[in-house]
Each structure stands twice: as C-alpha cells, then as structure tokens.
C-alpha cells in the first residue's frame, strides 16, 4: 500500500468479516438503496428541475396507480423473478450463465411454434405441450455450453454470452418467417380469435397463472437449494471445485444437471412471456431481462424471497420511470439510467457487508 506512514502501518486496513448479523445486512442494503434513491432524486432535479418528492410520487402512481398498472408491474416483476430463479442454481455453483436472454427466447420460439402449428389440439394438451417444449428447448440451449465447460473447461461466460446472439438471430428468423400481416416484420397477436394456447383468465386476469407458477418455482427452488442433496452439491462445487472432487462429487455431472435445470426454468419464462402475457414473439420478448436477472440473482444471494423483492423494486422503477418520461416528454430510457445507478450503489454496499475497515491506531480493539 502506498500510504504507509510512520509506524509502517497503512491508514486503512481491510479484513474479511466472518459474518454479520442479518439485521445489519438488511440495514446496509436498505441504507444503500435509500442513498441511491436520494442521489437519483437530485439527478432528476438537476436535469429536469422537477421536485424529487413529486417525481417519486409520480413514479409510485405510474407503477401502482390503477389496477391495470399494478398488473403490468406485477407481470414485469414475475418475469424478472422467474429468470432470476432459473439462474440462481447455476450462479450458486459459480457457473456464469450469462445466456438467460437466449434461453428465454428459445423457450418463447417453441411456445409460439406450438401455438401456431398445433392450435387444433384441445387446450389442456396444447398448454402441456407448450410447457414441456419450452422447458426442453431452454434446457438444451443451456446444455451445450455446460457440456463443453464440464469436459474441456471452455469459458462459459463467453460461450453463453455468444449463445444469446445466436438465439436473437434465430428469433429474428422466425419472426420474418411467421410475420403477420405480410411485410410488417412482426408476428402480431397469435391466435387472436380462438385464443388457442393462451393462459385462461383466473380471478379476472390472465396473469394470475404466471404469478402462481413463479411463486411455486420460488418455493421449490428455495427447498431445492437449501434442503436437498443436489442443492448441497451445488453449494460445494460453488465454494471449491477441488473440495467437491475430493469429496467424491462428480463435478462435471453436477454442472450439466444444474445447467439443464437452469435453462429449463429460463425457457419456461419464455413460455410465460409468450403464452401468458404478450401472445406474440419478438426479440423484445426477453428484452434485456436475461441480463438484468443476473444482477437480481446475484444481489439476492440466490435467496428466493429476496429475488422476488429485488424484482419488485426493479419493476417499480421501470414502470415508474416510464410514467415520469411520458409526463415530462423525456424518453423512458431514464429508467435504465436510474436502475443502473441503484445497482451500482447496492453492488458497492456489498463491500461493507463482506469487509470491515480498520483505521490506524484503532487496531487491536476490534480484532477477532
């Protein structure tokens, strides 16, 4: 360290914390979130001259003001949470699955294909086929990088990243192939008249089934990671591959198995996006959520409930910033900017959870 002074002791030393009380953890995270919101408020004020309090109230109205808005925020939240839940086991294993975007799209393509070509089937059978097909497609899309990582240690971050763009082009291919009406370069609403393959409405909304499915996934993933042998193996591989090998865990197989699961859930997110929400397919079916969900899973430390909460926060910011943008005639990319800033703050706050600073002169007191 450059700042060595008289006693040869640096001004600030860092030490890893063993553990921090849960209350303190939550406190640090909430604190960083508050500072981030404050910072964004000042920034919005500087750019637009609007009163930050009014801005946040407008955002709240934009996200939760009417029933339709609440459902659209919930829809966004569930989509993000579903992908994050899918990514959680892979990331816990320290397998960098950056390919969720592609896995979602592949699931969406298969779903749309079923809706287009199998619409004569009875509805329950069709939905079951769409469910299974999208899960298998997502799993297979994730399998390829997993096999290469397991066998030849091919860098999975870069491999899965590239697979996204192959999937995006594949989506564009099918959009051009299925376009309706001709020349519009969009698929349009699939089965608009018969609604074959659409989620049936429950309690007055078609999103209800998606909500139930995602909550079910959340609970199952929590149990899987925490209380099963598989979950334990994932944790060991994530902590140290060598330890896992020494303990007799077949690391390659755990990787492949976990990635199949991860890809399948991401594929199902595509299924829900197509059959449960938009009823069409385009490259914006995933729309960058595959990347955002990575941050959600990471910040939540793969805990299901926290993933749902962070997804809610991001969905709120998304719809809220959209409202400000349309009210002030600015474009709605403002939401991405705000999300980025908030993520920076939360990411930075992790440091204070994992490390503590020891100032010169005070050493010895808090030493463990």
């Amino acid at each position, binding site marked *: 360290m450059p700042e060595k002074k008289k006693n040869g002791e640096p001004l600030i030393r860092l030490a890893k914390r063993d553990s921090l009380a849960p209350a303190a953890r939550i406190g640090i995270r909430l604190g960083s979130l508050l500072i981030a919101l404050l910072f964004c408020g000042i920034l919005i004020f500087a750019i637009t001259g609007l009163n930050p309090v009014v801005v946040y109230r407008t955002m709240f109205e934009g996200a939760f003001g009417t029933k339709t808005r609440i459902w659209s925020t919930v829809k966004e939240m569930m989509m993000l949470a579903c992908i994050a839940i899918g990514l959680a086991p892979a990331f816990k294993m320290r397998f960098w699955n950056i390919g969720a975007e592609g896995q979602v799209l592949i699931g969406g393509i298969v779903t749309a294909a079923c809706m287009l070509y199998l619409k004569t089937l009875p509805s329950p059978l069709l939905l079951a086929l769409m469910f299974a097909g999208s899960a298998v497609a997502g799993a297979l899309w994730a399998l390829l990088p997993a096999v290469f990582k397991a066998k*030849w240690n*091919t860098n999975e971050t870069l491999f899965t990243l*590239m697979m996204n763009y*192959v999937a995006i*082009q594949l989506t564009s*291919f099918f959009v051009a192939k299925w376009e309706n009406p001709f020349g519009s370069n969009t698929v349009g609403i699939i089965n608009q008249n018969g609604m074959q393959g659409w989620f049936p409405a429950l309690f007055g909304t078609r999103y209800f089934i998606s909500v139930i499915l995602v909550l079910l996934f959340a609970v199952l993933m929590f149990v899987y990671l925490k209380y099963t042998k598989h979950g334990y193996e994932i944790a060991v591989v994530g902590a140290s591959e060598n330890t896992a090998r020494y303990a007799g865990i077949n690391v390659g197989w755990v990787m492949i198995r976990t990635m199949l699961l991860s890809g399948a859930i991401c594929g199902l997110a595509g299924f829900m996006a197509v059959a449960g929400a938009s009823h069409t397919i385009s490259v914006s079916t995933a729309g960058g959520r595959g990347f*955002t969900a990575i941050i959600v899973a*990471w910040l939540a430390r793969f805990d299901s409930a926290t993933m749902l909460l962070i997804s809610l926060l991001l969905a709120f910011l998304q719809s809220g910033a959209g409202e400000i943008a349309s009210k002030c005639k600015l474009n709605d990319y*403002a939401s991405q900017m705000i999300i980025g800033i908030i993520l*920076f703050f939360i990411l930075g706050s992790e440091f204070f959870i994992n490390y503590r600073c020891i100032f010169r002169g005070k050493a010895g007191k808090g030493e463990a």
Partner: protein
Amino acid sequence: MSSLISLLQAAVYFGTVIMFGCIGEILTEKAGNLNLGVPGIMYLGGISSLVAVFLYEGATENPQPALCVLIALLASFLGAALGGLIYAFLTITLRANQNVTGLALSIFGSGVANFFGGSLNTLAGRFEQISVPVTSAAFRKTVPFLSGLGAVGKIFFSYGFMVYLAVILAGVMQYFLHHTRSGLNLRTVGENPQAADAAGIDVTKNKYLAICIGAGICGFGGAYYVMDYIKGTWANDGSIEKLGWLAVALVIFATWKARNAIWGAYLFGVLYWMYLYIPGLTRASQEIFKMLPYVVTIIVLVVTSLRNSREKQPPAALGQAYFREER
C-alpha cells in the same frame, strides 16, 4: 467487382467500430478484468462526443473542423473512461463481482446515452433532429488524392481518419503488451496478481490504469460510430449495444492479441454484411446469416479450449478479484 468493393468497404466501416472496442477490452482483460460493460462504455463514448460537439457547434458561428474533431475525441475518451472508473472502483476497491458490475454498467451506459440522445433536443429546445454537420464531415473526410485511385483507392483510402487510427492503435497495443516492460508487468497482473504483488508491481494502479484507458479506447469506437458510421446523428435502435457485444466476441476471436484484432474485425464485418451480397436470400434466411460472427466466435472458443495451447488462453486470473490478505 463493384459489389465486392462495396462489401469490403462496409466491412471496414463495421470492423473499425468493433476494433476500437476490442483493443480497449484486450487491455482491460490483460490486466485480469473481464469488463462486460463494453456496450455501455461505447454508448457513453458516443454520447459524450455528440453532446460536446453539439454544444460547441451550437455556440460558435464558424466551428473549426480540427477543433471539432479534437473535442469529440477528447469527450468520448473522458466519458468512456469515467464509465471505466465506476467499474474499476466497484470491482477493484470495493471488490464487487466483475461480471455483475459490467452488466450493470451496460444497463447504465445505454440508459444514459439513449436518454440524452433522445431528449437532447427537448432539453436544448432547438433543432429538429440532432446533427453536427461540421464534425461529421471532418470525421468522414477521405484521404485526399489517393482515394481517387480506382479500386485500390476505394478499398484502402476511401475512409475517415479513424479507420487508420484504429489500425495504428492496434499495432501500438500489440507492441506495448508484448515488447515493453510495463506491458509485461500488466500481463503479470492479469496472469498472477499474487506473483506480481510479490515482485513489487502495484496491482491496484495497473488495474485502474488498464481499465480506464481501455474504456477510453472503447469510447473511440462509440465516437466513430456516431460521427462517421451514422453521420453525426443519434439513433435509439440499440445497434451500439450489439456492436459492443461483438467487440467482446472479437477479443476471444483474436485470442487476446491486438494484432489479430485488425483482420478479425474486418472479417467480422465481411461475415456480418455478406448476406447483402448473396443473391436469392429471403429476409428470413438473411437473419440466419447474421449469426455467423457469433457462431465463428463460439467455434474459436471451443477449438482453443480443446487444443489447450498455452499461447491462446485467456489471462489466468481473468474475472477474479485480487485481495492481498487472502490466501
């Protein structure tokens, strides 16, 4: 013949954007930091240059072309380096995860750039569509005399100065990384930070410098895209983002060597635009053709890992935070 020439020209335009991104990312990755924020950084570079020149051209009666270019380059470098600084601070000083921080930077950068790019007019209260005619013309000025030399002139000399700057920069980067002492130190930091630290190399300083300067170079790619590729306007269509990821892909394709980035970038350009020059393709099958650069990158990635040759591997400590007190 003329269609071949126009394909090559399109490939050079396209390749130059990603070559800047690739050179910057090679510098960053050689110091052991995988920065997935390249798309965001290129966005920041592009918008900074546009805003700076927009303000300058709006404020003066007779904007000087040379000054315009200087302002654009300086602004893009600084804007992008600032993005790099955020990433460096979070990953080095606060030891946040590199991949996650990089992705957050990509979201942030594209948000900032598209926000200002899209609302610059509303905020400034003038002009219909943003345009910076003087600067754009200066960027697109071709090599005098030589560009008139028939086919050869068209293929080699019909570009703005940034195309040549990219090639020169790639050469300089190759020389710096593999033939100078500071380059060797930097690579040691990326391969084995513990050893570098023990040998008295300042790991933190090397990483900070590599990330910020690397980001600045990526920013040139954004500036070239805005000023030359789309002729001094702004487009909210996400194409910089796509190009940014291709730049990351190109780093792998070039196996972390700046000299390979030169021909790799042009090859990516040819692969990307080839569909326009193959007769009888439907619009759907064109999309399949646009997959080629990514598929080729995957193949390169797989082949290098299969052959396992030491020369062609990623830096050994790529993506890992260095914490001296940790064993």
